[in-house]
């Protein structure tokens, strides 16, 4: 789960992390009582807003509304700006970087900090990064914070403030099941406050059941992905036109790769998982059909999965939606012959291997079959 900046900042504030004062709006005239020396910031779930012109200064209510009006509706890397955040403009003395994230290799949490803030962390040279693991079994102890503030060259009150923000960020990271808590830039103002200039928060989708309050947030999903998510279906929209559906994430990825090697391009990643419940299969196919693929490529390798009930689900969806989209299927599993029978009834093309199925799908798309 990703969070728009203003929502992330709301959560940060709950943990006592200082954030600038701000107001949110989806139309210029909604902006009331904003900070009068402001930054107007596009709220989109993608980086690079600043360079794209999505973050601009404005002074006074009139200019703020004017600038907001120009930012609202902008397209930033494919994302339409529907919300702006009008925030107190900070007098920046120094910008730093601070984040907690998961280190998969070390199977541990990684604290990353840098005295180079306000830029993409990937662009910061390795020797400019402070990195320290924070093991979940013992938690964040003062020695890490001492090393952190030392690496940032901070002393006295500023060191204490940054250490405190780091401690609170880690609490947030743990308690909110975050994958990423990032403050970039972490700003020292000219009047010696330490404030989260930006706030990025990504929460583990698998922990949604522990944070039901987040379930309805704006997500980085297309409307169809959102619909699939609501139904518990693993679905990603891609930029090709062949609808790929398979069982298992790895197999679905491999099917897309093979399709590509055969000259086709996948328009969907749809992982049926282990299900052979015809109702679930039908639901998944409905999503798939709504994605308007030119052809559907179905690849089931079901050692245990019952192929015939999968086929029933496919048939049910095609019939129910009066869909005429051609289906190329490669089905292996229990009752695979019966499955082929059922799908032949809806005009399905059949293949023995993924490779053949992929080739066939490409041919069908070209109108060659």
């Amino acid at each position, binding site marked *: 789960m990703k969070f728009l900046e203003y929502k992330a900042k709301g959560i940060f504030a709950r943990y006592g992390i200082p954030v600038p004062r701000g107001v949110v709006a989806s139309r210029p005239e909604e902006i009331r009582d904003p900070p009068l020396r402001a930054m107007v910031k596009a709220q989109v779930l993608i980086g690079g807003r600043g360079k794209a012109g999505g973050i601009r200064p404005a002074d006074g209510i009139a200019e703020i509304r004017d600038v907001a009006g120009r930012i609202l509706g902008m397209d930033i890397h494919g994302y339409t700006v529907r919300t702006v955040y009008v925030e107190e403009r900070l007098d920046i003395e120094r910008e730093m970087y601070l984040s907690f994230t*998961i280190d*998969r*290799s070390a*199977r541990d949490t990684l604290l990353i900090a840098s005295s180079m803030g306000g830029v993409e962390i*990937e662009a910061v040279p390795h020797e400019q990064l402070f990195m320290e693991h924070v093991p979940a079994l013992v938690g964040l102890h003062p020695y890490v914070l001492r090393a952190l503030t030392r690496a940032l060259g901070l002393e006295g009150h500023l060191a204490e403030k940054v250490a405190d923000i780091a401690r609170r960020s880690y609490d947030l990271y743990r308690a909110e099941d975050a994958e990423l808590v990032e403050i970039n830039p972490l700003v020292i103002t000219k009047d010696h406050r330490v404030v989260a200039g930006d706030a990025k928060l990504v929460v583990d989708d*698998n922990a949604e059941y522990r944070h039901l309050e987040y379930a309805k947030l704006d997500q980085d999903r297309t409307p169809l992905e959102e619909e699939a998510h609501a139904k518990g279906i693993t679905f990603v929209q891609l930029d090709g036109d062949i609808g790929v559906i398979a069982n298992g994430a*790895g197999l679905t990825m*491999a099917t897309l790769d093979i399709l590509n090697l055969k000259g086709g391009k996948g328009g969907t990643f749809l992982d049926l998982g*282990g299900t052979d419940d015809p109702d679930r299969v039908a639901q998944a196919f409905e999503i798939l059909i709504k994605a308007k693929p030119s052809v559907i490529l179905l690849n089931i390798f079901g*050692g245990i999965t019952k192929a015939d009930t999968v086929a029933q689900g496919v048939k049910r969806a095609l019939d129910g939606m009066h869909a005429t989209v051609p289906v190329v299927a490669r089905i292996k599993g229990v009752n695979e012959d019966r499955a082929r029978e059922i799908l032949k009834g809806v005009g399905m093309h059949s293949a023995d291997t993924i490779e053949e199925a992929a080739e066939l799908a490409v041919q069908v798309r070209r109108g060659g079959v």
Partner: protein
Amino acid sequence: MSRTAVLLTRKTRLLVQGITGHQGTFHTRAMLDYGTKVVAGVRAGKGGTKVEGVSVYDTVREAVATKRANASIVFVPAPFANDAILEAIEGGVGLVVVITERIPFHDALEFVPYARSKGCTIIGPNCPGIISPGQSKAGIMPSHIFSAGDVGVVSRSGTLTYEIVNEMTRAGFGQSTCIGIGGDPIIGTNTVEALALFQKDRATKRIVVVGEIGGTAEEEAAEFIKKHVTKPVVAYVAGRTAPAGKRMGHAGAIIQGTRGTAESKVKAFADAGVPVAEYPRDAAALLGST
């Protein structure tokens, strides 16, 4: 005759946590049919009953004490899985196979290092389990596609592995042990650790690594193979066409910025002298040329 294998042999005494659920019951039957010594099930409140002829206990400790279980397979739903895994670790089993998917990784950040501190090996979470063909299965994979042999398989995915193993079996390349390490970002046994086990195992002569996008497990595996693995290795990497920033089904299968791409993984394997199959079925063919 006793054969060696990695982690799981015909002597392993398995208990099933969450045996009374649909999946638990179904796979208990399937594992018994395969010859796995499923000695006990655990489900609080159902102690004293039987599932598929297997005695059910209220706690892991009872199951271990009564039936000398030394491994566990976990089917318990995600919100209760952490508890079940800790119970298994404290109960004293040496191997815990976690089938459950969608466990928050913050839970794994605790139970994975804790298991390690107790000398307990975790496989998974979000994995198909482990099978030593002809000996035992602690997992949910279809048994009939496997055949006993000398190829060790380590994989981040389920059905894709079945596809590859099926082809291997047809081509005459039987398997010593297949470990489905799971598709989550934090897993108990990673690719490098599985490779280390296969390198040591006398029954394993060759190794297949099935990787996918996300993280750097394959890059680390390639590095490890260069330094420590003398047995021939072939690889397959899924997700060559996956876009950045999208989670491809597995919680761990995501390209983040420029990290975790298939290109990087394929290149790492190539640099380590590991042939990488273009199509899944080619893995078996590549094995033939090692």
